[in-house]
C-alpha cells in the first residue's frame, strides 16, 4: 500500500497514487500540484544517521576527525523541522555551504525494545524518501552535528509517499539519486550502508524504545553539493518515491 497525506479543499486527506496525479479517499482525482503535501505519516522521534555510507565517510574525511567507528553515529531531530513534498526550504543569506542529503527513511510500525537483528524488520511499517539538509557554516564541535546545522525549520523533507514494507522486496537494494535543476549530482545504492536497517534497529532499540511513527533516516552516500536560492532539488529512491523541494531565500520569510 502506498499513501500520502495531503491538504485539499480545506481538509486533510489520505491520498493514493493515480495516473492523473493523486486520488483522495473520497474519489477526487487531482494533479499533484493541486494539493499541499504533508509528511506522509505522523512523525514521532526522528533519528538520523551520520556517515552511514562508506563513500560519504571518505568524502568528508578531511573535515572529520574520525574515519572509523564502532558505534553508529546517530543524532536526533525534532518533528518541527519536517516538511513535505513540493515544499520550500530556507537558505539563510549568510550560508556559503548548504547541501541536501538523499536518504532512505525507515518508518517504525511496531514498538521495538531490545530487538535482535533477526527480528528487526518485523518492526518496520514502511519507507519514504528524506532530503535532510545541512548548513555547514553553522557547524560547531559541540554535540555534533549541532541542531543549528541539522534541525532547522524546513530543512528535513519527507515524502511524497509512505510505501508499506511489504511492497519493497529488498530495502538494501535500492538505487537513490539527487538532481539539482535536472542535473544528477548524487548517486548511490542502499546496498552500501555501513550499518544496515536491522543493525540500526538492534542498536537503537537496545537503549531506547522505538514506537510507531518513529523514523530512522539511514544516511546519505557521497555527492553532496551546495544548493542556491531558486534551485529545484529532487531526491529519489527507486520504488519509494521522487521528492521535490525548492530552495528559497530569506526574502520569502521577510528577513
Amino acid at each position, binding site marked *: 500500500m502506498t499513501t500520502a497525506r495531503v491538504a485539499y479543499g480545506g481538509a486533510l486527506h489520505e491520498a493514493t497514487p493515480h495516473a492523473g496525479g493523486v486520488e483522495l479517499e473520497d474519489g477526487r482525482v487531482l494533479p499533484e500540484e493541486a494539493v499541499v503535501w504533508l509528511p506522509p505519516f505522523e512523525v514521532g522521534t526522528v533519528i538520523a544517521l551520520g556517515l552511514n555510507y562508506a563513500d560519504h565517510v571518505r568524502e568528508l574525511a578531511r573535515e572529520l576527525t574520525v574515519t572509523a567507528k564502532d558505534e553508529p553515529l*546517530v543524532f*536526533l531531530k*525534532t518533528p518541527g523541522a519536517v516538511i513535505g513534498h513540493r515544499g520550500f526550504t530556507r537558505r539563510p543569506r549568510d550560508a556559503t555551504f548548504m547541501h541536501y542529503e538523499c536518504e532512505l527513511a525507515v518508518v517504525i510500525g511496531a514498538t521495538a525494545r531490545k530487538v535482535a537483528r533477526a527480528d528487526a524488520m518485523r518492526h518496520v511499517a514502511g519507507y519514504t524518501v528524506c532530503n535532510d539538509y545541512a548548513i555547514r557554516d*553553522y557547524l560547531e*564541535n*559541540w*554535540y555534533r552535528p549541532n*541542531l543549528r546545522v541539522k534541525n532547522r525549520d524546513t530543512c528535513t523533507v519527507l515524502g511524497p509517499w509512505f510505501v508499506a514494507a511489504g511492497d519493497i522486496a529488498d530495502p538494501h537494494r535500492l538505487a537513490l539519486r539527487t538532481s539539482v535543476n535536472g542535473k544528477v549530482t548524487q548517486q548511490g545504492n542502499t546496498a552500501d550502508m555501513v550499518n544496515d536497517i536491522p543493525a540500526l534497529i538492534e542498536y537503537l532499540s537496545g537503549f531506547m*524504545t522505538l514506537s510507531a511513527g518513529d523514523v530512522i533516516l539511514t544516511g546519505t552516500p557521497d555527492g553532496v553539493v551546495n544548493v542556491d536560492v531558486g534551485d529545484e532539488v529532487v531526491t529519489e529512491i527507486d520504488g519509494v518515491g521522487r521528492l521535490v523541494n525548492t530552495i528559497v531565500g530569506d526574502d520569502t520569510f521577510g528577513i
Partner: protein
Amino acid sequence: MLASPVAFDAPPYRLSGVVVGPLLNHAAALAALGDAVREAPYKAAPKGPILYIKPRNTLAATGAAVTIPATGAELEIGASLGMVIGATACRVDPRQALAHVAGYTLVADLSVPHDTYYRPSIRFKALDGSCLIGPRVVARASLADPDALAIRISVDGVEAQSTGTGGMVRSAARLIADVSEFMTLRPGDVLMLGVALGAPRGRAGQRFAIEVQSIGTLEGRLVAEGEETPA
C-alpha cells in the same frame, strides 16, 4: 514498555513531547572546561546555543523509576527549569521571548556520565524514562524571575546540590530568542534552561528529588536493569 506518560492535560499546558535542552549554558560549567574549549576536538568555545533533544521515549512523570543500564553503575541527575511554550515562537526578540512561555516546570535530565561533548553517543541521553517532567506547570505570571530561582537536589533525602537558575550564559529570554532563530518553538514544547555545574550522580536503589519552592518537588528513583518492580 514506554515510560509512563507525561500529560499536563489542561490547555495550554498539554505537552507536545518535544523537549530540548542546552549544553553548557551554565557559565561556571563552561568555565570549568578552561582552555580545553579552544583545543581539539572543540577548537573554539560554543557560539550558538548547543542543544540536545530528549526524545519521547525518555519522557516520564514525577515519581517514575529510571532504569540504569547494565553497562553503567551511575546516572547523572541533571536538574533544570523547564519552560513550557504557550505561544508559537519563531525568531522572537529577547524582549518579547518570555511572553511566549505558558508556564514553568521542572525537568530531571538523567544521563550516562560522559566527559566528551564533541560527538557523544545519544545513548547517554536517550535512555528510556530518563527525562522526568513535573510535578506541575506553574503559570508564567506566578514566577517573578525565572533566572533567579533556587534549586535544591537531594539524593536519598540528603542535599546533594544547592544551585539555581542564575549565572547562565543565556538567560531564559535570550535562550528562547536564540533557539527560535532557527527552530520554531510551539505550544507544549519544553525548553530546558540548562543544568548547573556539579550535577550529582545516583545509583540503583537511590531516590532523588529536585525542588524549586515556587514550583514544587520532582521526584524519581533509580533501579537496576532487570530489577524494575513497582514502587
